[in-house]
């Protein structure tokens, strides 16, 4: 089996990797690039733990092939903070205790950021439906929704 | 004297019908020894399978726990998380 040579921009950095045809983008991130912040909960697109941005669109990286990333930009949880400066969503997740075990957290943060980029002032219902593709078994979602609302308010300059 | 209440499964196996006994003991270790002298073999089973309840609290593996003079002592199945 010969591997594909793929070039992509990952978290703003030019990146090259080799992958097999059948390898998902999630496998590539985790196994080839050691970016293990994206998590695998199902490999069937049902849990959202593997959420990343592909060319600015929210995708489940377990449903995308590694080769499909060729020539495109991929943004993962590892690129969300700017050095030591956390993204407001990351800060509000911490301050609002929006994580318990934390396995779902990278996926929620990526998905929530995608929402706020489109909808800076989402209603509770909009947040709940947007995040319905991300499973969390620990929190009952209460503090996650509140953290997203708080971060949105801060980012809008409303507080 | 502590007043000890034994569960039915233990009564059936060890005490030929005696469900309540008075025992003089300072702590759980002493209590077990005293019971075992009366009903040989009972202590090992109580220690392995049972928790002790005294004064509204539950104790597991607690040799050192003091047994008060008029304490009512109960044995209940160990509380497990389930395996």
């Amino acid at each position, binding site marked *: 089996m010969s591997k594909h040579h793929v070039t992509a921009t990952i978290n703003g950095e030019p990146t090259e990797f080799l992958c097999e045809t059948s390898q998902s983008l999630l496998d590539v991130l985790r196994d080839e690039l050691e970016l293990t912040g994206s998590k695998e909960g199902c490999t069937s697109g049902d849990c959202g733990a593997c959420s990343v941005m592909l060319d600015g669109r929210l995708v489940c990286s377990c449903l995308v092939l590694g080769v499909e990333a060729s020539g495109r930009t991929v943004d993962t949880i590892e690129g969300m903070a700017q050095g030591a400066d956390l993204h407001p969503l990351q800060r509000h997740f*911490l301050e609002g205790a929006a994580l318990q075990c934390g396995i779902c957290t*990278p996926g929620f943060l990526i998905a929530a950021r995608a929402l706020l980029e489109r909808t800076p002032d989402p209603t509770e219902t909009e*947040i709940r439906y947007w995040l*319905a593709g991300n499973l969390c078994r620990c929190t*009952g979602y209460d503090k996650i929704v509140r953290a997203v609302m708080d971060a949105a308010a801060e980012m809008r300059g409303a507080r | 004297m502590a007043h000890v209440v034994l569960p039915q499964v233990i009564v059936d196996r060890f005490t030929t019908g005696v469900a309540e006994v008075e025992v003089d003991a300072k702590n759980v270790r002493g209590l077990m020894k005293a019971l075992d002298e009366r009903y040989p073999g009972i202590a090992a089973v109580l220690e392995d399978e049972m928790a002790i309840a005294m004064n509204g609290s539950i104790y597991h593996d*607690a040799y050192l726990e003091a047994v008060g003079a008029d304490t009512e002592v109960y044995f209940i199945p160990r509380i497990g*998380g389930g395996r």
Partner: protein
Amino acid sequence: MTAERKEFRWIGKRPVRPDGVDKVTGRAQFSADFNMPGQLIGKVLRSPHAHARIKSIDTSKAKALAGVKAVITGADFPSLPDEWVGAGRVEGNFKYFSENIIARDKVLYEGHTVAAVAAVSAAIAEEALSLIKVDYEVLPHVIDPVEAMAPDAPLLHEKMITRGMKTPPTKPSNVAKWAEFLMGDPVEGFKKADVIVERSYTTKAVHQGYIEPHAVAASTSADGQTVVWCSSQGQYQVRTWVSKIVGLPLSSIRVIPAEIGGGFGGKLIPYLEPLAVRMSRLTNRPVKITMSREDVFRATGPTSGAAMKIKVGATKDGKIVAAEGEFIFQAGAYPGSPFMNGLMCSFAPYAIPNVRTWGYDVVTNRPKAAAYRAPGSPIAAYAVESALDELAKKLNIHPVDLRLKNAIVEGTPSYFGPKFGSVGFVETLEALKKHPNYNIPLGPNQGRGFASGFWFNGGGESCATVNINDDGTASVIEGNPDIGGSRASMAIMAAEVLGIDYDKVRPIVGDTASLGFNHVTGGSRVTFATGMAVVRAAEDAVREMKERAAMLWDISPDAVTWEDGFARPAGDNAGKHEPLSLKQIAGQAAKTGGPICGHASLNAQAPGPGLGSHMVDVEVDPETGHVKILRYTASQDVGRAIHPSYVEGQMQGGVAQGIGWALNEEYIYDKNGRLENPGFLDYRMPVCSDLPFIDTIMIEKPVPSHPFGVRGVGEVPIVPPMAAVANAIHSAIGKRLTSLPMSPPKVRAAIDGDA
């Protein structure tokens, strides 16, 4: 006594958790995130049959495949004696434990491990699995626990005799154990009742549903020392199991806890670890195995399904005079359902003079049931709390008032023997009545339901070390995986005792070599028992620092007090010396006797039981039978909330799981005993848009045995929701649903009157 102290500096505050930044940036390492140079990939061959005899296994072709380094079967593991070992920390039967991890002569459920392979790549390992030839003799199977009790049911364990009966039966059966609790005389008691409710209920097996699948990496060096990286609810538990099942001394195994992506009881026991360790010892190379989501559903967890009969009787004024309950719990392939907890928790919240509960632990051709949050109690509570709602309606008493009239208080005798200590049950009910949600008017097709729940809470063995660093900070080593913010609670308690800032305290979860034995993260014991160890260890460090200060001042240690992080001379010496800060004392540690560290090791006793009361509003769509949760209010006696956000989080998370259990979740089997819904698409857990905000009421009734009054909080919240939702549905449509899940077709059928 600290428990009475009103003012706390850190307890009750909501600081950011110490491991938080790693978890929001993707740095935290969960079990599947470990990789080692030269590592082999392990894969597991699982049974396609629900019940079959293994006639032979031919691994020769798999072993011959290039790149395959090890192939193992049950024959590679020692056979363990069929005995029940009762010792506290590992009670159970290791023959069964071992055979559940890898089958010997029979497979007992679809997904049962038959063999495992380690190879240089995942693809080669997969291919090797397909080359293993297993010759099965398929046997008749049984999935339902009631059917499994029938005299002609296929036997899973041909020699199994029911335990727990006064006269043991002579014939083997699928009933592993029988038990009974009796107080008073229910037959006489029911004669005094004006109103009696009698009804049967069933629940289905549901999975814990943690988002992180099981994974492990194990490495063995040439001298036989094995290191295991995995996420679990107890690294010491993993070590014990690996030691017994692989047959190794404890000292040759070191288990390093990874961050854990949810457990809820399902990660108390290992599945993959013995396989990975065995293969790493055969190859002297690291072996990594991860489960797929399908594997997780087919071969781990779930909790029991059950069939129950409840009878409760009360006088006209609402006093419950007698109660009975029969509880048939499905254990899965090996004995060990939580039926005993069900028998004890079911009627526990109520002062009833005449009670009898009895039950059966029944083996069936399903994965072995594992613990799931307050194991046994939610199942029993669904039945009992539904029956009480019906009783309240018949008596024309508000369901909360019925519970208040019969609620246990300190000193109430339980039907399993002892009297209850301090419990805050009445307070949880009264708090509901005062909550604004209690009086919100309901619209058409809407209903409001109430239910309560009980859990014992656990204590047990814990130890902790507090190291005082020379810059005035402290490191805390504890031995319990942090599954929902417990590092924060430990740091808060240590900071409180040491009198220094929270962010000067850094807790870590140690591996099995860095501390003595610690019991599991489970039974709602960690903040109570391990918290107690951390408090005692911090106090030990304070005692040491007082001695060092006394030495520097040439006074007796008894004449030194510790306040807000400073040693101060007291008594006759008060004011004679400048107070010494923790940092100053630590800075001179080399001169005054060496490093300062406190340690404590204990077996925490007398945990306070937990009680909670819930109120839920639902709206039922009469067309589809879909139930929408409109509002949810959970009230609970939490003892003392060390970090209130994480206490609320436990309550909200438990409620959400309970709502899933109530409305959607179930294991569905086809006629061949194969699981039909082993994925998140068809095993539907609640998502964000299914739920409203979940309101919490924390009642603090401190537990006397803990220095800060901590009561376990993690398990009670999953106990009431199923009944609360069922009762709300009844209030909305006037129909009572007596089988879980209350999925749309069932609700629809109930509305149409054929339920």
